[in-house]
């Protein structure tokens, strides 16, 4: 609590300065290198070769399909939980959240175990000698992977629709289905649109799923990687990344526009949920919506089960005998586990801290550069992870910087920033600015206001930011795949390699242990938060 005021003022300026320098060095400089790597002939070859045309078409196709189905499932699931009055509502509402805090490799790996050539469903149950690798597999994997995000956005939107609007439609004699199609659905459009745009960007830059289950169905995010590792063709790789960035940036700009328009619109429809009892869905709708939720839940639970089963089976699909060998063998990967958890922890901490300072300075102070920083902080969400990893690798190479641990942490931190920045901006926006002024008039400098007022009042947002960053950090592949070195092996990359080699038992065991440790750390976080929350005011 001791604080020298003059130093505090200077400290804040220094903190802000370092944030600005971080953004220049770690975001803008790498992107600058990417832009100047390719030669003209690289552009020509990419734009004329049929191989790349197919990759572009595939990328567009899977982007449209996966986005559509993710949002469809997310919206129906959200409707079922918020308005559909399904059975086991609390249980079902928790499932997408659980899925969201599960490291992403669980999805890809379990897909191999369930639908691969030796897959439980394809081989053991159906006796087929085929796999679902390719377009259909990728569609299923991505839909399952991204629907929880759509679910979260749609839940928010549905909660914002005043039930009395639906009731008055009901009162005018409309049937349940009619109310849904003429009132609820149209009022959900802003949320649906926002989910579509957000997920489309995520699908475009998704690397893990197409890498593991894409098979011969090539997409740009993976080609960026194969071009560099297989052919050492950094120029073509960079051009592919730039091509991929174009739609990402368009979607990103659209999304920001939609968000702005939404906040204006919601103000006019009056988002306040009235305390009036919700309209009850009919029994038929209730049962079918419950069945739908159960099916989605089953798919998610099957992923976990597949990992657990895979970790304890001698040879998946061939020798189902129980064994502890794989799990006890994880000892070999202690350094991978340590690195993954350590880097994820540091990156999550860093990006939450940087986002916190940036969100405070851009929205609540008059510091210089804050407008440009507002854009730069959100920019990485339009840059595909693979491309950014490549950018960091190229920049580091040119600057002769070879500490891969630092580079991994930078790539992860920058990748997480847009999410953390957004969540903290909206958390701060809920706090009245007179709190800042009040503290200032009592003698607090800017840094003091941040640390003694805003941070203690934003523990929820800070923790969500940290948790989500940490989980993604543990499972991240795309941003770090160019940066791992012999000295800095990562568990997520090892899981991928083991799975590619057909060492499914080892891969599943490592995934299982990493997931369990991640959940344990999150559990501890929850505990700390609840201790904090007790002291925080609820209006």
């Amino acid at each position, binding site marked *: *609590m*001791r*604080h020298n*005021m003059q130093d505090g*003022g200077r400290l804040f300026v220094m903190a802000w300065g370092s944030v600005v320098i971080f953004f220049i060095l770690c975001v803008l400089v790498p992107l600058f290198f990417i832009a100047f790597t390719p030669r003209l002939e690289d552009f020509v070859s990419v734009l004329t070769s049929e191989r790349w045309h197919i990759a572009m078409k595939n990328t567009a196709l899977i982007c449209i399909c996966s986005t559509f189905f993710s949002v469809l499932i997310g919206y129906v699931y959200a409707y079922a939980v918020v308005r559909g009055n399904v059975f086991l509502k609390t249980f079902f509402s928790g499932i997408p959240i659980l899925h969201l805090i599960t490291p992403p490799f669980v999805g890809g790996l379990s897909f191999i175990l369930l639908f691969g050539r030796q897959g439980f469903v394809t081989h053991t149950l159906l006796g087929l000698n085929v796999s679902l690798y390719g377009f259909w597999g990728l569609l299923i994997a991505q839909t399952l992977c991204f629907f929880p995000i759509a679910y979260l956005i749609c839940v928010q939107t549905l909660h914002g629709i005043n039930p009395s609007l639906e009731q008055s439609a009901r009162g005018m004699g409309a049937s349940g289905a009619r109310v849904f199609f003429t009132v609820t659905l149209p009022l959900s459009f802003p949320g649906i649109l926002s989910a579509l745009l957000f997920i489309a960007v995520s699908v475009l830059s998704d690397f893990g799923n197409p890498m593991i289950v894409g098979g011969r169905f090539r997409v740009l995010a993976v080609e960026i990687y194969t071009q560099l590792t297989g052919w050492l063709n950094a120029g073509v790789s960079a051009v592919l990344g730039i091509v991929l960035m174009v739609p990402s940036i368009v979607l990103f700009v659209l999304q920001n526009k939609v968000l702005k328009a939404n906040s204006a619109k919601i103000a006019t429809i009056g988002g306040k949920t009235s305390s009036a009892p919700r309209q009850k869905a009919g029994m038929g709708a209730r049962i079918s919506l419950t069945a739908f939720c159960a099916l989605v839940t089953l798919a998610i639970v099957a992923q976990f089960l597949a990992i657990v089963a895979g970790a304890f089976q001698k040879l998946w699909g061939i020798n189902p005998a129980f064994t502890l060998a794989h799990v006890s063998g994880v000892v070999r990967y202690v350094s991978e586990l340590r690195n993954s958890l350590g880097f994820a922890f540091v990156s999550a901490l860093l990006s939450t801290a940087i986002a916190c300072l940036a969100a405070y300075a851009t929205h609540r102070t008059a510091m210089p550069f804050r407008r440009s920083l507002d854009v730069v902080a959100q920019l990485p969400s339009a840059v595909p992870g693979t491309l950014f990893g490549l950018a960091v690798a190229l920049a580091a190479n040119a600057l002769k910087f070879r500490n891969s641990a630092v580079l991994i942490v930078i790539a992860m931190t920058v990748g997480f920033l847009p999410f953390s920045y957004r969540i903290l901006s909206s958390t701060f926006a809920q706090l*009245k600015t*007179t*709190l800042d*002024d*009040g*503290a*200032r*008039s*009592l*003698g*607090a*400098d800017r840094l*003091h206001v941040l640390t*003694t*007022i805003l941070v*203690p*009042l934003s523990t929820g947002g800070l923790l969500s930011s940290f948790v989500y960053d940490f989980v993604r950090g543990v499972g991240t592949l795309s941003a770090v795949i160019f940066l791992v070195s012999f000295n800095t092996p990562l568990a997520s990359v090892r899981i991928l390699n083991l799975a590619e080699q057909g060492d499914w038992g080892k891969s599943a065991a490592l995934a299982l242990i990493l997931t369990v440790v991640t959940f344990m750390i999150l559990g501890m976080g929850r505990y700390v938060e609840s201790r904090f929350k007790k*002291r*925080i*005011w*609820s*209006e």
Partner: protein
Amino acid sequence: MAERASLSLEHLTFSFGKVDAVNDFSLEVQPGSFTTLLGPSGCGKTTLLRLISGFLEPAQGCVKINGIDQKGIAPDRRKVGMVFQDYALFPHLTVEQNLLYGLKIQKKPKDEAYALIHQTARLLGIANLLERYPHELSGGQQQRVALGRALVLKPLILLMDEPLSSLDAKLRALVREELQDIQRDFGITTVYVTHDQEEALSLSDSIAVINHGVLQQTGTPQNVYFRPANKFVADFVGRANFIEQGGGIKMVRPEWMVLREIGDGHADDSRAATDSTLCLPGTVISFAFLGESIRYRVKCEAVTGGIAVVDMRTSTGDAIPAGSSVILSVQNSYDL
């Protein structure tokens, strides 16, 4: 007790983009006085408070406290206390921690700080609330904590931004009286912002009426009420009727007129005509019973706008019915 500081605003000008919020505004605030900035919402009074407290810097002109120009001094260094409209109590801190917040930053020794807090809390009648959190307090209690939080730091100037507006009517009247007592006890130079003329009249030593960022008039409450500088002040501070006569405008307060019903035996035109008082014919449109008085709306051609507002004291509550023809006799008026 606090040092009595003087405050002077000299030719302050500030604009938000193209909109002038404050224009060439000058005001002397006497040491230890209670001065109110009164004006409609959007008139620039909150901007003035933010200029005094240092959250905004004037484009032109200066703010002087005890004769010292405050230019470039950040809000946390100005020794200006502020009470906000929504109180801005820190919700995660107890009342005691809220009161302690500024003293901790000043690094006051612990025992001294606690002694100061308890003394202030006793004076404000919140000594029994120290362990509570802000959300466990009533509006009036929150208001006193906000005041106490500013006062423990012994600021040179105390600023209050519509501090009563979130209280209900009855509590507002009560807290208003307390506020006046506290200000007198502490003797601190206070600038108070409100759009409520009744609040301004009852609380202040001096009132500054503002419109569109321009100072209209300063003076004692009596001065402003009885001798308004212009039509805006007359209309904004209390109700006013205007009568154009011989090139000039007379202002007449509703309680400065008496209504007489024609043909009720009390009044006749001949007697009114012989008096030196101005008498105007009219018709009652409607009336509202206000308790101690009845407020009439009277159709009267001679009054600007065609409708006069007249307050008549009543002890019986009997009113002249709507539609009655009346004579308005003007007992008192002020030439604008």
